């Protein structure tokens, strides 16, 4: 990594660690979602084990969406975004690095927390590992897709809800293949590798489409 990229990465990571402990809030929200589900569907452990991967994925999706609206907004409000546009660095890369830092600060803690929460859902060790692995591969895609929504709603004062509405349809494929591959590892006859590789491909696609689209949106937003 060249110097500027490292500087940006460190700055974003520092900011998210120092401001409000966004990682902690995300994990708490994740915990809250997972806790609420049994109250809805009943404490049937077999049922919970069956839908466990889905619950964890939906929890992770919601927790990721929750923190995304500040991804560019904070920088826009204090004028930093204007200067970033003029910095002479490729904006797509800037966004990719910001997403990476954001994922490490908010997405990775979710992945780390997932095995623990899987215990509540009566998942066996194999599925626990499978869910965690799919989350590790899939949550970056959620952040990258979410970056598009974040840059589109950057100028809106209350863009958080709209962001979720815009991003969720785009995130459906990630959710489908994330849950499918986790399920495949547990009971279905489908091999684990097939959906898992598609999930990896989706993340790679998101790593291209996300930064390109949100760079375009951010350039227009400076107007």
């Amino acid at each position, binding site marked *: 990594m060249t*110097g*500027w990229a*490292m*500087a*940006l990465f460190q*700055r974003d990571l*520092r*900011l998210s660690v*120092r*401001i409000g402990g966004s990682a902690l809030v995300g994990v708490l929200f994740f915990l809250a979602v997972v806790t609420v589900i049994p109250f809805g569907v009943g404490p049937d452990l077999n049922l919970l084990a069956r839908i466990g991967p889905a619950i964890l994925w939906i929890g992770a999706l919601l927790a990721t969406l929750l923190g995304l609206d500040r991804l560019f907004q904070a920088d826009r409000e*204090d*004028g*930093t975004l*204007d*200067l*970033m*546009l*003029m*910095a*002479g*660095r490729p904006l797509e890369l800037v966004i990719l690095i910001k997403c990476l830092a954001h994922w490490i600060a908010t997405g990775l803690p979710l992945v780390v927390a997932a095995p623990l929460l899987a215990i509540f859902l009566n998942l066996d060790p194999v599925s626990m590992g499978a869910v965690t692995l799919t989350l590790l591969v899939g949550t970056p895609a959620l952040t990258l897709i979410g970056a598009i929504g974040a840059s589109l709603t950057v100028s809106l004062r209350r863009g958080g809800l709209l962001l979720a509405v815009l991003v969720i349809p785009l995130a459906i494929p990630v959710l489908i293949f994330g849950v499918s591959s986790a399920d495949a590892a547990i009971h279905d006859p489908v091999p684990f590798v097939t959906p898992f590789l598609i999930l990896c491909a989706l993340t790679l696609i998101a790593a291209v489409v996300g930064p390109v689209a949100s760079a375009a949106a951010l350039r*227009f937003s*400076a*107007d």
Partner: protein
Amino acid sequence: MRSSHLKLIAENLTIDRGGRRVFQDLSFSLSQGSALVVTGANGIGKSSLLRTLAGLVSLAAGTIRLEGGETDRLPQEQAHYFGHQDAVKPALSVLENLRFWQNFAAASVCEGFTGATLSPLLVLDTLGIGHTAHLPAAYLSAGQKRRLSLSRLLVTPRPVWLMDEPTSALDKASEQQLLGIMNDHLASGGLIVTATHTELVLDRIETLHLQAADPAEQAPEEALL
């Protein structure tokens, strides 16, 4: 007189914002070592002009180029924008704020411009906020934040400075210091475009007065759609 390599040239700039024409067919050229002071009534488009030069507002028509600058960089990537917002992160220390901008913004050196890369600590000392270097920027006063934002211009050399109301939130002494810094920049071969209400005593000044047009000529077809 210095040999003028660098020249900021704006031709027929036309800007629409929110479906309204802000100004049209504005042209000027500014050569090395001089400052362009943009004056005019409130809301006439001074800030818009600076943001356009900074590449932040898209042009409806016209071109901006920096003659003699780096050919593979856009004009705005060789410019510093010093606007109303300080771009200071309260959660980072003063030094961290400044170091980030030094590392992040690409320096631009071109022939005839001798602006140097100064060390962050030195710059903070010069601007009188050296003692705050390791404090979180949240503790700075408005004037100190302004100075921290200004120090960003000194740690990364770029020939063009775009300054929107640079003296706001500064006291008399700091204002004098700011003028000194601006004059140094001009002396080292830089260019300054600034919008201001107050009289600025700079070495070589050209003025650009923005004036309301005759209402009959305004807002062409396209702007109305």
